[in-house]
């Protein structure tokens, strides 16, 4: 398969997958249990989910390793199993896609706040990410996706861990922004301009945003990224912000709506479009087909 970055640089639009957690819960993940623990026992479920998104037309399939850094796994006393948890997840996706899609190894926040704001030393967070990144490199993935980060400093730690332990594997760096009347900021106060420049300087291959917003805000976020970087942009939008209806969580954006709006993401300069919370294989299928039709017209 042609290299991921080459295709992006040739101007191709690639589609990534959607939410995994909700599909895991439908298949028996008990609320409050560690989603990554399934990587030790239920590889079949991981393969099945990867297959659903592959069938929906995703070019990039993520692994179930969002909370797979030892610091995060420590909450479930699974930190000693971090390496095998991450390697198994990659192996499962590899089995399911067998070369038909890129494997994107997901890495989420440590769950800790760095000193002096919190109580955790940066060395500790760096080491934790290094363990996860080493496992990614050993198992072999096509790209690493560091996502849902809300602190640029923590993102830089994860990025440097990836570059050190998995040299040669491209890294996508994706942060979560809140819409405020004064513009988009992470909870720690990082702006898009500063984020784009800092990550580009630090060697990120792809920059962007996931989670925290529906697709209309994501279009604005993408435009702002485009103003400040020439790197390929990744956007993984929520299906809107969650609402409670009759005690059930409900994400308001339909597959049709997101597919329609995906065109504006492309216009804004986005190269990789995927889904975050609330998106389903149907969302990805509709986005895929809309983008395919639209590219032909161009």
């Amino acid at each position, binding site marked *: 398969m042609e290299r991921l970055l080459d295709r992006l640089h040739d101007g191709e639009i690639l589609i990534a997958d959607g939410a995994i957690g909700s599909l895991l819960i439908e298949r028996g993940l008990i*609320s409050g249990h560690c989603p990554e623990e399934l990587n030790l026992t239920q590889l079949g479920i991981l393969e099945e989910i990867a297959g659903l998104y592959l069938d929906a037309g995703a070019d990039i399939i993520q692994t179930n390793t969002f909370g797979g850094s030892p610091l995060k796994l420590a909450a479930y006393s699974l930190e000693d199993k971090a390496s095998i948890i991450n390697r198994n997840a990659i192996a499962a996706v590899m089995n399911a896609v067998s070369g038909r899609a890129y494997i994107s190894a997901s890495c989420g926040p440590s769950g800790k706040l760095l000193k002096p704001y919190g109580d955790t030393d940066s060395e500790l967070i760096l080491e934790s990410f290094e363990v996860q990144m080493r496992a990614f490199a050993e198992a072999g993935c096509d790209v690493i996706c560091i996502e849902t980060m809300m602190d640029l400093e923590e993102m830089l730690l994860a990025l440097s861990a990836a570059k050190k332990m998995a040299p040669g594997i491209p890294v996508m760096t994706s942060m979560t922004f809140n819409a405020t009347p004064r513009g988009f900021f992470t909870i720690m106060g990082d702006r898009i301009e500063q984020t784009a420049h800092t990550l580009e300087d630090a060697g990120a291959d792809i920059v962007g945003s996931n989670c925290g917003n529906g697709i209309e805000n994501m279009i604005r976020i993408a435009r702002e990224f485009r103003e400040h970087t020439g790197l390929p942009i990744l956007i993984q939008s929520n299906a809107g912000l969650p*609402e409670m209806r009759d005690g059930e969580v409900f994400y308001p954006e339909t597959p049709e709506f997101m597919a329609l709006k995906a065109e504006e993401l492309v216009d804004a300069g986005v190269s990789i479009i995927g889904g975050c919370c609330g998106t389903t294989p149907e969302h990805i299928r509709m986005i895929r087909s809309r983008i395919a039709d639209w590219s032909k017209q161009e």
Partner: protein
Amino acid sequence: MELLNRISEDLQNGMDEAVVILTQEALEKNIPPIEIMNDGLVAGMNVVGRKFKDHEIFLPDVLLAARAMNRAMEVLKPLLIEDGIPTRGRIVIGSVKDDLHDIGKNLVGILLKGAGFEVIDLGNDVSAEMFISAAREQNAQVIGMSALLTTTMPVMKQVVEMAREEGLYGKVRILIGGAPVSKEYAREIGADAYGFDGANAVDTVEGFFAEGT
């Protein structure tokens, strides 16, 4: 007063060392501890809370200001107790069981403390039983619960039900918050209120006490 203004300003800038030194200086000048707390520390935290609400400052600034507040309160607390000064009220807070994210809850705790309330933080992974027994043992007037995961929200409902069974309902007010939580959900489970952000949670708690909890 000049000295108390400096305490407030240094606190807003997160200068914990300076705030502690100025607090000691104020005590040496025989300024009553309650005045140092209200017109220095709480006044500063109020500005921090308002700026945070208006997105002028962000989480790091709030956390540093809170650290300064906490350090100065370590100096003042024994003296306040000695003076028999009542706090504005006592609140038990925590993130519900199995919900491991606690940034929001910590922020609410910081802002409540900053507003002069006594906050008992039960931490993460707090069961319904733990909320209820802590509220009873500590004689708290409010229970504040945070959930970030939709899957853990039912614990909030359990707390409301348990408060009913234990005869605490109506005596202890219940406030809920967190990304997936809503006003509708609060109504549905019978919680007293929903705080849509940290600053709003403080306003709501102040409202409880104004009504007479």
